[in-house]
């Protein structure tokens, strides 16, 4: 027991926590029989001190220091031998130190700017538009809005069922007073998706869809002199067997060549992107294998509270939506048409996305017209963005009472049906 205790203490010593320390103390003292109590008058839960830098050794050429290294014991007057670097001759994963960046196998001199799911871009939608060479069109396209208004595409008792879904997510889905934001936004999204999917009886094409989560996306493209990459696990993806139809006609696509991208001097468009020198070149991976039966990305669903460590402001959240939608579209285009930049795709790739924080929705349709993104001129991609669509005003557990008057009643208040109709339109697009 002693050697293993010693080893455990040695390895655990720098990382002692108070509780672990006390349990060790109890075990050790209990083993010996008579319990001796040792208390220390100092803090037991301090931070681990950083390794102290050794004193600088001065090397004088021509003067050789006489060390006590050969004698194997300390001799006063002789110098301390320089520490010899020792390496294990076998590979032990517990004691592996990764090499510095410039010695890694994938090190490159040219840096690559990575966008991942925790990036918070400073300039927001303008920066995303510049990086993806996109023309931003506010408002959803007319075809989708007309799809929403068509009475055939509506669920029976739509308003009531949506309100029930909101109430379930916001009030009923917990044993505590109120569910937390991460929980209710997730529940609400899944409830709304379930409601949309009930239309499968009347729209059989909805059966050729599949939801996927936690898939890793990777795309590379060049923008001017810089190499850009998108990596990460973005959110919920609705895949389908058939691609989405084109949103804008050939004439509109050709007209985007006249659009000038918004530059934001003096800030560089690659600000806030992670600059790495160790990366794999030319990674293009949709996240699924080649024989996956639902290869076309249909809609991406983003939750603001998916990552608890990373809180994004609304503008930055929209940027993340745009970048990942673009990443999915570009990965698909690279698979279909190859990685060489194409000035105009024969069939533009369309991907939709919806982002929500539980109450406010952002809808977006992205159409990838070109993969030739290095220059600033030429045909641009197109994006229709509808920001800040509220589904309801308030969903309060306790009413807000000011001066003995009820300002906001308890329960669901201010339900707006347009948000769900747009949600349904985006869901049904391509299957109607």
């Amino acid at each position, binding site marked *: 027991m*002693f*050697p293993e*205790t*010693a080893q455990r*203490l*040695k390895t655990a*010593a*720098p990382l*002692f926590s108070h509780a672990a*320390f006390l349990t*060790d*103390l109890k075990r*050790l*003292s209990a*083993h*010996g029989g*008579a319990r*001796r*109590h*040792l*208390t*220390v*008058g*100092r*803090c*037991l839960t*301090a*931070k*681990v*001190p*950083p390794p*102290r830098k050794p004193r600088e050794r001065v090397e004088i050429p021509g003067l050789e220091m006489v060390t006590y290294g050969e004698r194997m014991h300390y001799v006063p007057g002789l110098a301390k031998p320089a520490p010899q670097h020792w390496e294990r001759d076998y590979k032990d994963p517990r004691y592996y130190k990764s090499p510095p960046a410039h010695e890694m196998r994938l090190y490159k001199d040219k840096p690559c700017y990575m966008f991942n799911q925790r990036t918070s871009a*400073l300039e927001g939608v303008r920066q995303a538009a510049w990086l993806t060479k996109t023309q931003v069109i506010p408002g959803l396209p007319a075809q989708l809005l007309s799809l929403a208004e068509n009475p055939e595409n509506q669920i029976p008792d739509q308003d009531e069922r949506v309100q029930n879904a909101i109430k379930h997510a916001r009030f009923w889905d917990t044993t505590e007073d109120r569910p937390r934001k991460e929980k209710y936004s997730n529940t609400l999204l899944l409830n709304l998706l379930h409601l949309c999917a009930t239309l499968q009886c009347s729209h059989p094409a909805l059966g050729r869809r599949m939801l996927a989560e936690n898939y890793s996306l990777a795309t590379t493209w060049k923008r001017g002199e810089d190499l850009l990459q998108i990596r990460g696990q973005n959110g919920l993806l609705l895949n389908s067997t058939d691609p989405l139809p084109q949103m804008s006609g050939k004439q509109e696509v050709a007209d985007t060549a006249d659009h000038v991208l918004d530059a*934001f*001097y*003096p*800030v*560089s468009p*690659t*600000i806030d992107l992670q*600059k790495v020198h160790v990366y794999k070149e030319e990674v293009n991976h949709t996240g699924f294998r080649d024989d996956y039966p639902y290869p076309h990305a249909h809609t991406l669903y983003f939750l603001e509270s998916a990552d608890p460590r990373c809180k994004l402001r609304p503008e930055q959240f929209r940027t993340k939506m745009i970048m990942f939608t673009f990443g999915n579209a570009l990965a698909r285009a690279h698979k279909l048409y190859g990685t060489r930049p194409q000035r105009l795709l024969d069939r533009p790739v369309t991907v939709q996305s919806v982002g929500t924080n539980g109450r406010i929705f952002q809808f977006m349709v992205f159409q990838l017209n070109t993969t030739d993104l290095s220059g600033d001129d030429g045909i641009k991609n197109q994006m229709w963005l509808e920001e800040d669509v509220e589904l309801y005003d308030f969903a309060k557990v306790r009413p807000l009472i000011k001066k003995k008057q009820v300002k906001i009643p308890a329960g669901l208040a201010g339900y707006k049906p347009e948000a769900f109709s747009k949600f349904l339109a985006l869901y049904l697009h391509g299957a109607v």
Partner: protein
Amino acid sequence: MALSCLTRALRSLTLSQPALVSSQAAAWSKLGAQVPSSAVIQCRGFLTTASLEQNRVRWKQREKYTIRPIGMKKTGGRDHTGRIRTHGIGGGHKQRYRWVDFHRLRYEANREGQPFEEKVVEVRYDPCRSADIALVAGGERKRWIIATENMQAGDIIKTSGVIGRMAVSANEGDAYPLGALPVGTLVNNLELRPGKGSEYIRAAGTSGVLLRKVNGTAIVQLPSKQQVQVLETCMVTVGRISNVDHNKRIIGKAGRNRWLGIRPSSGLWQRKGGWAGRKIKPLPPMKVYINLPSVSAS
């Protein structure tokens, strides 16, 4: 440290196996005083208070610049010995330190030597100083600087290290070397030695005045009316520092002072000596921060 010496001395009294103790001693000598010494089993119990190495300055040892606020440890006016060196400091609201970049002329990695512009993203309150700070973004980096009086989000500020023949008509918030500015401009964030970083005129509402430029040097009047002669390549920002009404604020109650971390002064009445009272004396001589070649050497 003291504890480990004591326990080593008391080792003869313990009944533990020597192998364990020597291995632990080897571990102790490596780790220094941080090792919990009660890993020695069956030791006679006693209380000790070793002099602790306070991790007081550990939060400052960060090499990489960051705009994220850093958690701070308050000193309470105590120095490294643990005694009060400055009275009247202690308590107050918790503060996080925003690392302000006082080297205004700090070029980015690839763009040395060229004047550059930056955009002000946000101007906000800083709990650690009287002035407000501004988050500026330029190129691929963001940094905090001391905000000047009329700085707002969206402004573009220029930093240049070039001294031209003609004086530049400077806008507020821009940073130029002293030699490039016209005489009489209000300046702040003064560097005494070029490249050292600004150390003077940083408090809220303060500004210095560029008095005259004398072959290669410039003379600036500080807010205390003291005059200072520095090299003309020292960087300086134009304008007054933000939060101009800082000296007009009324604390209002003792509690607000305690929130600011100011403890009450000693209530003991002490006879005031020659240091107290109004003094009328001539200005001290101008301080020269240039290493002029001595006349006797020629």
